[in-house]
């Protein structure tokens, strides 16, 4: 168990270093930040001074070594845009993303388990067919389209909900609903499929022969065995949400890490881009460990 965690951690550190290296060089391909931060008519001297101040005058491999050395001192660089620690900027935005992701994935998983189980309990019924239709629509509707239509109808048209931003509980409704759609749609399909095969398995016959009531058979015996694939897919979806829902955060002006990332890339705020990557990569690593541990909790046959 401990050795397993240690092995996972060391593998992850290697991949994070690889990722940071890649991001470091790729972001610098987008161009020179001084072109964005200084007035169009600024002099060559002013540009050189800006570059010197931010270490951009050094050869690129030198800049990279400098970056790595600073990382060891937990110095993640300064944001060009905000003139403060890039890591601080990333860490301020991250909880906003995390909250939204947690709400979306928890609600969609819970709802999908309920709907999928009930659909599998009576395959071919009206409920099953309606659930399949809705989940299919949810899984395939493009989120930017749903988001924009939502704003048009509920914010602009009916004036019931705010168009964007944060503050009240009403601000949560549209972003979390849009983020829930795809996970909900996919998970209903997964739950329904695994529940169908679980309900056909021999131990369900045993449960029926024992005289267990129907709800205990469905939710006690079948569902418990169906959770493993559900956790796999839900974990995967959670990972993509933690990574920052770039489109949804941008449309609803949600101050999360996805929006920060895309803004920083456009603004060539390199230190912030690198910090956001580091934060999300760490979060995804922790999430994956948690999913693996959850497997072992759910299935006693799995041991690390």
């Amino acid at each position, binding site marked *: 168990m401990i050795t397993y965690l240690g092995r996972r951690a060391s593998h992850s550190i290697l991949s994070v270093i690889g990722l940071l290296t890649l991001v470091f060089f790729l972001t610098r391909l987008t161009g020179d930040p001084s072109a964005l931060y200084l007035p169009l008519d600024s002099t060559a001297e002013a540009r050189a001074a800006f570059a010197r101040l931010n270490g951009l005058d050094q050869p690129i491999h030198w800049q990279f070594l400098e970056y790595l050395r600073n990382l060891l001192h937990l110095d993640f660089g300064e944001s060009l845009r905000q003139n403060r620690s890039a890591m601080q900027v990333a860490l301020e935005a991250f909880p906003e993303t995390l909250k939204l992701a947690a709400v979306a994935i928890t609600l969609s998983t819970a709802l999908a388990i309920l709907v999928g189980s009930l659909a599998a309990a009576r395959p071919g019924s009206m409920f099953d067919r309606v659930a399949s239709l809705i989940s299919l629509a949810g899984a395939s509707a493009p989120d930017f389209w749903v988001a924009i239509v939502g704003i048009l109808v509920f914010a602009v048209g009916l004036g019931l909900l705010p168009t964007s931003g944060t503050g009240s509980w009403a601000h949560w409704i549209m972003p979390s609903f849009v983020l829930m759609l795809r996970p909900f749609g996919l998970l209903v399909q997964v739950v329904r499929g695994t529940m169908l095969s679980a309900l056909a*398995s*021999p*131990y369900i*016959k*045993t*449960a*029926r*022969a*024992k*005289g*267990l*009531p129907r709800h*205990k058979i469905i939710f006690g*015996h079948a569902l*418990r*065995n169906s959770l493993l694939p559900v956790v796999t897919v839900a974990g995967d979806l959670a990972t993509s949400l933690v990574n920052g829902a770039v489109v949804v955060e941008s449309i609803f002006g949600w101050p999360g890490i996805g929006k920060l990332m895309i803004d920083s890339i456009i603004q060539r705020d390199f230190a912030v881009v690198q910090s956001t990557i580091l934060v999300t990569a760490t979060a995804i690593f922790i999430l994956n460990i948690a999913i693996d541990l959850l497997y072992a909790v*759910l*299935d*006693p*046959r799995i041991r690390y």
Partner: protein
Amino acid sequence: MSNATNPILKVEGLTVDFLSDDEPVRAVDDVSFHVGHGETLVILGESGSGKSVSTSTVMDLIDCPPGDIVAGSCLFDGVELSDLSAQARRSINGRRIAMIFQDPLAYLNPVYTVGRQIKEVYESHGAGSGKDARAKTIELLRRVGIPEPENRVDFYPHQFSGGQRQRVMVAMAIALKPDILIADEPTTALDVSVQAQILDLLRDLQRETGMALIMITHDLEVASSMADRIIVMNGGKVVETGIAKEVFSNPQHAYTRRLISALPPGNAAEAPNKRSTAIASETLLKVEHLTKHYVLASGAFSGKRTFKAVDDISFEVRRGETLGIVGESGSGKSSVARMLLGLNAPSSGKAVFAGENIFEMNEKRLMAFRRKVQMVFQDPYGSMNPRMRVYSIISEPWAIHRDILSKNRWKARVAELLELVGLLPEHADRYPHQFSGGQRQRIAIARALASEPELIVCDEAVSALDVSIQAQVIDLLADLRTRLSLSYIFITHDLPIVRHFADRIMVMKDGRIVEEGQTSALFGAPRHEYTQSLLQAVPKPKWLTHAQ
């Protein structure tokens, strides 16, 4: 003992259809039976005979659709079961009628401890909960012979052996002292010695509680050792019914007679001898000090351990001879087969086939060797590509070994081989799924014969087949041996099967040979304790044991 005047369960005229795509298939047709307190009724039948469907109907385990109970009544303790509400049926299941199944690993929920699964029986019938139910569960596990029940109650199904899992199933079933226990092939997946223990347990429990036992089986020996009365089913119909002793000693229906003739009789002299008549003195295969060790992964608290799957065994097979290797699961018998075919490398030892050590052959020699030694597996369906026609399956060896046969003669030879194994030439155009289990095993034998082998290794080749089919396949193998002067290594867990077929028998246990000898000598006077226990574990007819 029999309580025919006042049976606890009386099934009459039961007819069940299963709805398939085209038209309903009649699984059970006008089946009637009854069972009284303390009585054992055996429902005997081969696969597809409808024997399980009839009892599943009693337990309300048939889903409708696809099942459809067309007619019939099930009278339990004077109450018509089909008149009851779903909830009333549920309160009977597990409390008054309980059921155990064939494969306890699949029939126990893998993610819950056995304790929890047994406790559920008490809780769902309001017969105890919490600490009280746990104490009862531990007591119950002790009763069915689980060691250290205080600890094992918190174990998961995968942490038990096959026999123990079936004991757990039995515990679950008898928790509330049901009036009827239905046992659906309860020992089919188990080794003979474990089977004997489970059957003993069932008999003891029946004596203690006076419950009625309905036992479903395809195994004639198990049937004869348990039954007071017996019903024989074939094609969904009851073909014969009566007192067990009478049915076995004087079967009326042609089907029953055929079934019972397949049973190796207790007296060896009565049996038709299928042993080889022409054993050459020439040694075909000589195995010396064959050993296979596996190094097990080290756990958190234990160092590396070595598991000896095969431990220093030596034997030889002569041309035209059949060597039976008998052992229970884990005895190493299949590991021997895999090494002889070059599928697994041995840890040490050698095997000389026609003057050459198999384990030192290079790729090219190995190819030539594999032509001469073929294998027939237990599951013919699993060992055939379902998307290949029989023609391609049988002719594939010729595509690999180009020199056997020129392509223009393939078709004629496939037809010839199919006829040799008792199939028809036109079967070449069909797919494996279009055949029955016995026919598929014949195809597997035809495929083995295609490369003109000298030695065929049969690994549990008839174990998955129904009894009457088993006998047919053994007859075929014996006939082919004579006609093609083949040698066999016949690996099985079932002693009676090899009794009249093998010339010599080698008994394996824990990777070692515990006894070896001519078949008649070994059966007549087994020297080793383990062989004796194996022979004794073969179920004896109930009426004989009662007489003693």
